[in-house]
């Protein structure tokens, strides 16, 4: 076999493997979406009915069950916690990169540790504390709990990002009579918009996807969508169409965000590991 033929063969093999991996990756989504559009009789049919008359009944049932309320809760807590994480975390990350003070490396290690710590270690004391001060089933309580995840993440992402911003930019601003705060607000932040967007998107998605904290610290008023979906399993028997419809509704905004912000997501996943 000639060199060119061999190369071609390898290329074809690779293409087939990638296609198979893509099929494996997207099959569950295909299943979820089609099932959400099927009548119960089609959802449970085997061999599967590949061609069926789509129905929106399942979505109707999900919305009737008060799903919009949980959607609202999810959004509200996500936005609250993202705002707090950014407002506090971004300046802190900047200070950690630019200033030299004692405890800086300690702070870095601590941030990593809180990224690693199991949520259950925080959930136990938070539950006890929130019970005594009435923060269980409370938006503020959920926001505080989510901060244990999103704040370290925002600081982590932003330190990686600020390290890439040349000091000369700020120095020029300082010489031109800017205060340090002015330099941060008018010079550093504008050039860091991609980093800020990454941090915000990740923080939003992480809180949107949360299940553990709202399961423990949430309640009837603050129930979030992921918690509400699991309720559809236990209390009403397995209605796959309804479950799938709820699943599609929860996942849809995340998928849209992923498509829009793919580059930021790679940066967020990789963090400062790859320059």
């Amino acid at each position, binding site marked *: 076999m000639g060199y060119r033929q061999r190369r071609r063969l390898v290329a074809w093999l690779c293409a087939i493997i*990638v296609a198979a991996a893509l099929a494996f990756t997207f099959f569950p*989504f295909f299943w979820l979406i089609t099932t959400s559009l099927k009548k119960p009789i089609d959802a449970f049919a085997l061999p599967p009915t590949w061609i069926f008359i789509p129905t929106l009944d399942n979505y109707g049932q999900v919305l009737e069950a008060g799903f919009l309320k949980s959607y609202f809760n999810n959004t509200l807590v996500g936005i609250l916690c993202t705002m707090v994480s950014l407002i506090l975390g971004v300046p*802190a990350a900047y200070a950690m990169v630019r200033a030299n003070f004692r405890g800086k490396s300690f702070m870095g290690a601590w941030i990593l540790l809180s990224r690693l710590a199991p949520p259950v270690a925080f959930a136990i004391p938070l539950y006890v504390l929130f019970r005594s001060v009435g923060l269980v089933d409370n938006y503020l309580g959920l926001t505080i709990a989510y901060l244990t995840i999103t704040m370290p993440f925002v600081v982590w992402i932003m330190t990686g990002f600020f390290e890439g911003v040349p000091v000369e930019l700020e120095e020029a601003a*300082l010489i031109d009579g800017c205060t340090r705060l002015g330099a941060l607000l008018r010079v550093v932040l504008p050039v860091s918009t991609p980093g800020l967007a990454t941090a915000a998107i990740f923080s939003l998605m992480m809180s949107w996807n949360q*299940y553990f904290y709202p399961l423990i610290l949430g309640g009837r008023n603050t129930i979030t969508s992921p918690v509400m979906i699991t309720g559809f399993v236990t209390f009403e028997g397995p209605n796959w169409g309804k479950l799938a419809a709820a699943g599609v509704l929860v996942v849809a905004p995340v998928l849209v965000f992923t498509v829009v912000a793919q580059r930021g997501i790679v940066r967020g996943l990789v963090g400062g590991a*790859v320059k």
Partner: protein
Amino acid sequence: MVRLALEARADKLDSQAGREGQAGARETVSQFIDRHIMLLLFLPAFLVLFLVTVVPFLTALWFSFTGYNLAKPNSDTFVGLETYQIVLSDPATRNALFNTFYLVAACVATETVLGVGLALLLARQFRGVRVVRSLFLVPLMTTPVVVALTWRMLYNTRFGYVNYFLGLLGLPTQDWLGDPALAMWALVVADIWVATPFVATIVLAGLLSLPEEPFEAAVVDGASALQTFWRITLPMLRPVLALAIMFRAVDAFVKFESILIMTGGGPGEVTTTLNFLAFNTGFYFLRLADAAVMSVVMVFLMLTIAFASIRWLGAGRV
């Protein structure tokens, strides 16, 4: 040198501003802010992080030395290491520890191998490669609860598509989530679905940032593709791999949604990990002290894993 000079100039300007500022009391506040700006930027986050992470963790540590049980009034008194003794000698804890390590090892091993393979495939140039790379980001961001529910239905013995496809291939169908021999691997496969793209994405970013010279040299020296991979690519990827492995290990360690939704820790207790046991003990059986002991043990183990992967594999900035 230029930077030093600039810094010196900035300092000079700062001190000039300082002298001018002393003239008018009006400026002292903003001056104070400017002088301590870094600390002021840093402190709020520090305080909040302290309140939401350190304080709860120290509280959990305190609980672990008590007999705190929400079902028993006045049980939150100091008992020393008694709770540790009870929990650590309990066969259920040991079983959970074993399951945890089994799950972590299975996930990390399979996902690292598959993830590196996928990254190598995605590092090639072909039409639409950018789109394909971003398509693999999708499972990572998908809500874990929805992923778990979807897999639970796909694994369903009677109506699930997994068994349907096996039947098409003439293979025996299985009770994936109900068979003690299979349940853990059913969880691992669902985890592979989510996390292989994660490893691949990180490794791919590492691959794309590698310098080209060593590879050119390898071609000149007539190294085979396999030799190039083992001798050049893999060693150069070490820091990135360390990061990926550490995150995978830690995330598998605290896996929660899929266990709760797909197996509920069963059948029997074959998929009950330490994290899941801690959740059940604390929030189902209300034995908070026992759960606190487990979470302290988990923190300890996870620190060990993290430091081990940083040390052995030489991760860069984490």
